[in-house]
């Protein structure tokens, strides 16, 4: 299955980026083979607003079935729920660590935001 992981760098040894909408990079990983594609998220990183919604739209349209990130606000959660993309939270470590935890079933899945929107 295809999983999107928010990262601060461009490979699996990079640290997880705890921000979803304003993550530096998005890695689209095939959890079966370990193969991955890198997607630049700079445009969202610098957006004045709506970064979470836009990132969620990108992730869903890339065909990811799950997302692993640090925090997610209400608009991004609402978008991913509609797109039927699962959301998992991981706190620190590398993208590889997060992927391993995910495969071992140790990541917490959410369907509600764990942080407030930035307008709140």
């Amino acid at each position, binding site marked *: 299955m295809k999983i999107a992981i928010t990262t601060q760098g461009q490979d699996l040894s990079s640290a997880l980026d705890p921000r979803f909408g304003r993550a530096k990079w998005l890695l689209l990983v095939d959890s079966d083979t370990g193969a991955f594609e890198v997607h630049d998220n700079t445009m969202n990183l610098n957006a004045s*607003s709506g970064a979470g919604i836009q990132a969620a739209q990108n992730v869903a349209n890339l065909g990811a079935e799950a997302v692993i990130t640090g925090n997610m606000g209400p608009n991004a959660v609402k978008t991913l729920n509609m797109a039927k993309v699962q959301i998992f939270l991981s706190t620190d470590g590398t993208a590889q660590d997060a992927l391993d935890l995910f495969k071992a079933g140790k990541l917490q899945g959410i369907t509600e935001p764990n942080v407030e929107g930035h307008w709140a």
Partner: protein
Amino acid sequence: MKIAIASGKGGTGKTTIATNLAVVLSKQGRDVELLDCDVEEPNCHIFVKPEMETSSPITIPVPEVDDAKCTGCGLCSALCQYSAIVCIKGKVMDFEDMCHGCGGCTLICPEKVITEREKEVGIVEIGQGKGFSFLHGLLKIGQVMAPAVIRGTKAAGRECEISIIDAPPGTSCPVIEAVKDADFVILVTEPTPFGLNDLKLAVGMVRALKRPFAVAINRCDAGDDAVKQYCLTEEISVILEIPDDRRIAEAYSRGEIALECIDDYVDIFSTTIKQIEGHHQ
């Protein structure tokens, strides 16, 4: 003529200057209107004490999509710069709090399945006080589209000889909405490093908008002379200097207009008006 009172830095004295200018013009028998466009926290009414006559809602159009008829083409989502409408795998979803009400999604929809609903973002109140017309916009609590409320407040104004617009502080979208069609902008600052830093930002803004402008220095004898030096170097006129006068602070703290309690200021503000009218001709 529209005169906007703006500043980079907050708390420099925009409201003091806006209300005193409106009062001095009214005393001269001119046809004046004061519009408080600091819609997130309007405060001119504290000094003008107007009798409010009407209160009207200000709305923006937000999209409603007929999901049954939507083909999921995604043109609306690709157009929207604020992620207020998204299209994922052929399904459309809208976020009305993100919507700026431009109407673009409705126009671009090839199937014409997007309709518009008016959403209230604030109100404009209109009244009379101290011999002139008074309007202020109030952003509804929980709403963020201040520019729409400023636009609505200005649209509710009438044609008159002189409109004074009290703008919000800063240099972002709400300020630009307040000053963009002004015939003259007064940038209020104070002689401090913060005042100078934010004045430079505000000067950049009015120059980009190509508005004629000048600077007012409040508490002019309280800080250093860096603001004056900057204005000299940049060839910017200083059309008003208000001293650090305890009597003004006392009048302000009682919710009173400075020139109504302190006679010296009638001449000072009258001179400012003359200078603006000189610039304007």
